[in-house]
Each structure stands twice: as structure tokens, then as C-alpha cells.
């Protein structure tokens, strides 16, 4: 704790004005099925990685759409690309491709820096 004994808490509102939604736009362009997600959570329910870690593909979708990209970087590493989520998705979202593209987007961003 700092010398004042308290700190500034980050607001819990979703600030669409300042959030960077470039990853969401990138995925919409390269994997149009990404738009079809209804956040039912079928992917997370069948996910093997989610059984052992705090990984949730449904949460990842929500964060990407909101542009809260700070939280997704570490989550992307947890997916094993087994593809069970793609099999159960009722909307036919190519979830495995979403993860792969998101990882590549991160790489391309890092390369750009």
C-alpha cells in the first residue's frame, strides 16, 4: 500500500468511447461467423481447458466485442485448439479460427511495436 493508505480504483463501466475494438473489427472481417455468437456458453461448457483453468471462450468473446483487450492476452494462451467448441456451437461459429486469428493479431501487433 502506498503512503496514503488508499488508491484509485478503476471504474467498472464499459467505456465504448475509449476501448480499442480493432481486434473485434479484424475478426469480423476475416472470420464473419464471429458475428453470429449469441454468448450461450456452449463452448465454455465443453471446453477441456476450462475444466482445469479459468479459461472461458464465452467470456473471451464478450471481452473482444467490448474492446477490453488488456484482459484477453493471457487467456488466449490457455486454448489447446482441440476444436470441441466448434463442434457444439449452435450458431456455427468457427471458434478455433477465431482463437488462431486473435493470436496472430496479437503477434502482428507485437511485431508492429
Amino acid at each position, binding site marked *: 500500500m*502506498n503512503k*496514503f*493508505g*488508499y*488508491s*484509485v*480504483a*478503476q*471504474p467498472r463501466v464499459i467505456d465504448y468511447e475509449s476501448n480499442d475494438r480493432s481486434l473485434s473489427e479484424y475478426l469480423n472481417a476475416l472470420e464473419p461467423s464471429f458475428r453470429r455468437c449469441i454468448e450461450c456458453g456452449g463452448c465454455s461448457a465443453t471446453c477441456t481447458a476450462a475444466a482445469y483453468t479459468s479459461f472461458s471462450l464465452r467470456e473471451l468473446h464478450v471481452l473482444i466485442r467490448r474492446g477490453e483487450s488488456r484482459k484477453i492476452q493471457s487467456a488466449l494462451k490457455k486454448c489447446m485448439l482441440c476444436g470441441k467448441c466448434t463442434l457444439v456451437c449452435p450458431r456455427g461459429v468457427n471458434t478455433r479460427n477465431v482463437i488462431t486469428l486473435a493470436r496472430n493479431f496479437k503477434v502482428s501487433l507485437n511485431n508492429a511495436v
Partner: protein
Amino acid sequence: MMKNEGKKRIWSDYQKEIADDHFFYVRSCIRQSFFPGSEQFFLNLMRKVLGKDVYEDPAHTTCTGIGYHSDIVPAATIMTVVARHFALMKEAGYKNLAVSCVTSFGLYTEILETWKHFPAELEKTREYLFKATGREFDIPENVAHTSDIVYSFRDQIAAKAKIKLVNSITGEPLKIVEHIGCHYSKMFPKSGIGGAEFPHVLSGMIDAWGGEVIDYPERRHCCGFGFRQYLVQANRGYSLSNTVKKFNSMKPYKPDMILANCPGCTMFMDKWQYTAKELEGITFGEKGESIPVLTYEELAGLVLGMNPWDLGLQYHMVQSEPLLRKLGVEINASDKYKTKDGKQMPVPQNLINV
């Protein structure tokens, strides 16, 4: 399309009656410490500039509002304390109350409203006061916050103005954030000019004196004070976080200054800028500077050509030099911390915008 007559009629519902003369003045606890020039200048403004009768009673005490909002002082006690103030006013022969503090103003209105709806409470309070002090009191005919009073005389002040709220370098009106204390009109909207929806008390002054009011997303957000958030050290992050949220919202509009009518708001918006800078290294003004926060008396004093150091601007955490330069006010830096007889006082540490 609404007709102008209709607009005027609706707007008339948002006005409040403000007495013109003969005020019984009650001071704030914290303003005398943090903005010592403000209340003194209000008295000078009323008595010497506008020629009004303002009476101050040395027997007046705190309203105990801070204790009341902290759940330390019970409602019956605070009602009796306030009844004693009304008794002092009756003994001095005054009927118009002028309240310096927004917390006190909120309490006076809350207590008067309570007595109106629960007359038994009024009778109990009369009994408590009489048993404790032998005093009797009348309900004031008019209760106004001192910002209401300055608002009602804003055009007379503008007519006597030495400077306008205009950037002397660019010729543009100064961009000013106005901040109304929550207890001024959010609890009892009819007690404030413009109600809770369109508070006009400070924006009216800014308009009359030549400035430009900034409308930003979190304009009506609390300053962050909130008695309970602040009083426990571990909870002060709630207070600071609210202030930072408000300042982040106003920052893109590049305000030249903030005008407030509540002692708590003025103090916290001033001092939290120092804390935010120390903790996170963030500032909210232009070029890494912080935004000066002034009281309406201090702003009226500047407009009337008063010396900024006589108004007490040097006692704020965020110093006003950038604002004074924009206004074209000549300042003598060596007089900043001198007493009236020319003695040098200690210079405060860690000031911002120096």
C-alpha cells in the same frame, strides 16, 4: 415547437425566492480553514460593495452536519442545534437566513421540511431547546445559500466589474466547469435555482461575468467527497476514484478553472488533484498543469478587481497563477505569503501549479 412565453412560464417554476436585504449570516466550519478569504469577502461584498445589512452572531456554532452524516449526532440533537441558530436569529431581529455552507444549507432545508410534515417533531424541538437554554425560536421567512445571494446580485457585480472572464491573450471567453454541491439542490430541488435538473446558480454567474460554461458528460457527478467514503482512511479510495472519474470526463474540454459552491466540493476537487498526481502521476489541466478550483466569492472578488492574495487564493492546493495570467491580473509574487502588516509567513510545501 415550444413558444418563448411557455418556456418562461416553465422556467419560473424553477426559481426560488431570495431575500434582498437584512441577512443573518451563518458561517461554515471548514471554509474558514481552507478558503479563509471567501467568507470575509462575502461580507465585504454585501456590506461595502452592495450596501446590504448582514448580521453575524459570534454565538453561532457548527450545525453538527458532519457528525450527523457520520451517524454520530442523532437527528433530535441536530434539530435542537439548528433551532438554537434560529433562536439567535430571532433575538437579533432577523428573518432571512444566509447560509455559507452547502452541507448546512441542505440540513436547514431538510429540518424545515421535516418540521413541515411532522409538526410533532417541531414541538419536541421547541421543548428540548427551551429546557436546555431557555430560548425560543421562529421559522425563518427566507433561507438562501450565499451562492443564491451572489447569483441574485450577479448583474450588479457585472456592472461594477473591473475584468471579464475572458482570456486576455486569445480574447476568447474562459472555459469554466461549474460544480454544484449535491446537498444544494439534489435533496430538495425546489430549494435551488433551476432545481436539480437545471441548476443555474453558478452557470448564471459565469454567463453574467463573461465566461463560457463547459457541458461535459459527468457534469452532475458527485465531487467524490461523500462523508462516509472519506472519514475512514481505508475507504478514501472510493472518494478519490469518483473525483478522478469526474476529472477524466472534463479533461478533454480543457477547462481553465472550476467554480464550486460547496465547501466539501471545493476542498476535495482542489486537494485530490494533488493526491492523484502523487499516486498516479496524472494531471487534468493543459501542459501537465492542474485546474484551479475557486469559490464563487473568490471569482466575484477577481471580477471586481480584488487582490488575489487578499481573497486567499494562495491557500488552495492548486495555485491559480495560470488562471490569473489568462485573466491578465497583475500579481506580486513576493506578497503572496505576507500578513497585512508585511511580515513573512511560512510558505506551504507541495503546492501545484507553482
